[in-house]
């Protein structure tokens, strides 16, 4: 009897989907950080960049749809594998010692959901325009005036308030931990291995996870240290409306 086996129906296929979607999301986080680092170049640079991102709606929406698809594929395959793996060991060990794995690998099912909630929070905070925290909004913070055409001030003023800083720091740390295992795991799942380069996979995972964690933490630190301050310049960008 012949039977067509589609790639996704296999455990290895699901891991390949997980790795490929993870790679797309990793690419986004790198781009996202490099764009945001323009904050250190000044408010005009930062806001011009934000405006530029929205000048070609087809590209903007193309990227958004691709990211949404990657997130759904990542979560969908993770959930299906989690269920399968749970069923593969119905009776648990009384004593169980881990000899090889690390904290990051063991907590992927925690850092993942934390990241999901963080991303929703982050979008509600900055993309959907002060829906959560802008003065007069649902969890409006007094003194956090929302300026539609001034993403720089929205970011800087946000980090002057603990209710914004705390979830942000938690999210960024969860991202770093998730990537420490995820980046290494991605190579393994896609079969990208070669005896000559294998040791570099862990180095790359550590390097990128550290870069993204420290890079993203630099914003709240710079704001709270007073290095980045709200600007008095006014901007008018219809693209950001």
């Amino acid at each position, binding site marked *: 009897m012949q039977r067509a086996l589609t790639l996704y129906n296999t*455990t290895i*296929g699901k891991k390949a989907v997980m790795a490929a979607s993870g790679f797309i999301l990793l690419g986004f986080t790198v781009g996202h950080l490099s764009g945001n680092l323009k904050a250190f170049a000044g408010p005009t640079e930062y806001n011009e960049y934000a405006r530029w991102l929205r000048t070609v709606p087809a590209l903007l929406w193309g990227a958004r749809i691709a990211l949404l698809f990657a997130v759904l594929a990542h979560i969908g395959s993770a959930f299906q*594998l989690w269920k399968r793996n749970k069923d593969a060991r119905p009776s648990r060990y009384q004593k169980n010692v881990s000899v090889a*794995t690390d904290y990051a690998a063991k907590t992927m099912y925690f850092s993942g959901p934390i990241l999901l909630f963080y991303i929703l929070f982050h979008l509600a905070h900055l993309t959907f325009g002060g829906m959560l925290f802008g003065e007069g909004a649902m969890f409006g913070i007094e003194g956090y005036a929302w300026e539609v055409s001034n993403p720089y001030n929205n970011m800087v003023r946000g980090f002057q308030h603990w209710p914004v800083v705390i979830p942000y720091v938690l999210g960024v740390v969860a991202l770093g931990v998730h990537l420490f295992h995820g980046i290494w795991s991605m190579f393994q799942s896609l079969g990208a291995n070669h005896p000559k380069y294998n040791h570099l996979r862990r180095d790359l995972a550590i390097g990128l996870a550290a870069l993204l964690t420290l890079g993203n933490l630099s914003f709240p630190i710079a704001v709270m240290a007073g290095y980045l301050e709200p600007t008095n310049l006014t901007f008018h960008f219809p693209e950001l409306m």
Partner: protein
Amino acid sequence: MKTKNLTLHVWRQDGPDAKGAFETYTAENVNEHMSFLEMLDDLNEKLIIEGKEPIAFDHDCREGICGSCNIVVNGYAHGPQERTTVCQLHMRHVFALGWSEIWLEPWRAAAFPVIKDLVVDRGALDRIIQSGGYISIRTGSARDANETPIPKPISDRAFDAATCIGCGACVAACPNASASLFTAAKVSHLGMLPQGQTERFDRVRKMVAQMDAEGFGSCTNHGECEKACPKGISIDFIAQMNRDFVKAMVTSKHDVEAPNDAE
């Protein structure tokens, strides 16, 4: 010569569908030069004399190559010593750790039903081999050495994978009860050699399909299997299997046979 009394908490289970539980025994005057299995033999003799049911455990060669003696000792598949099966674990190694209380459990996986106590049915691994872990072309009788040129690094790597004794410690140690390391070793040692090339991509599809059908979990790249493996088989082979499998699924023009029924 050092002797010691040990408290053993042993998993007792009458059959695949029976409910198991731990029972506590004392192994008296355990000699440091006993192997772990000899210590259990000694305890079983005592149980038989007392008219009790001896502890069932699997064993065959007792020289570390058959892969039968499968016990999770205090949370370690095959015990705490690296690259050592339970039969080759000696009580001096256990004494050196200062253990006086030891928990003995069977391999725990949905695909490995408990036959009795510490003995599990590893037929799932046999069915993975049956699904494609062989060469079906006739390769002739023994050839002259070096008649078929194989680069030394390739033959070494193939041999590293071929050292798998099919004990299932990788499944036991895996947080997901995945048989990825076993399947990868079996896929790779044939896939790297000239005789195995013809069926390389069909083989990986068939064996992975059977692995999935048996109800093993997926690989989440923890690396526990590699450390538990008495032969120290590297998880690099899992990456190699993943690559061959994805390639086979994307490029193959025909279907392969359906997996055998899992029991």
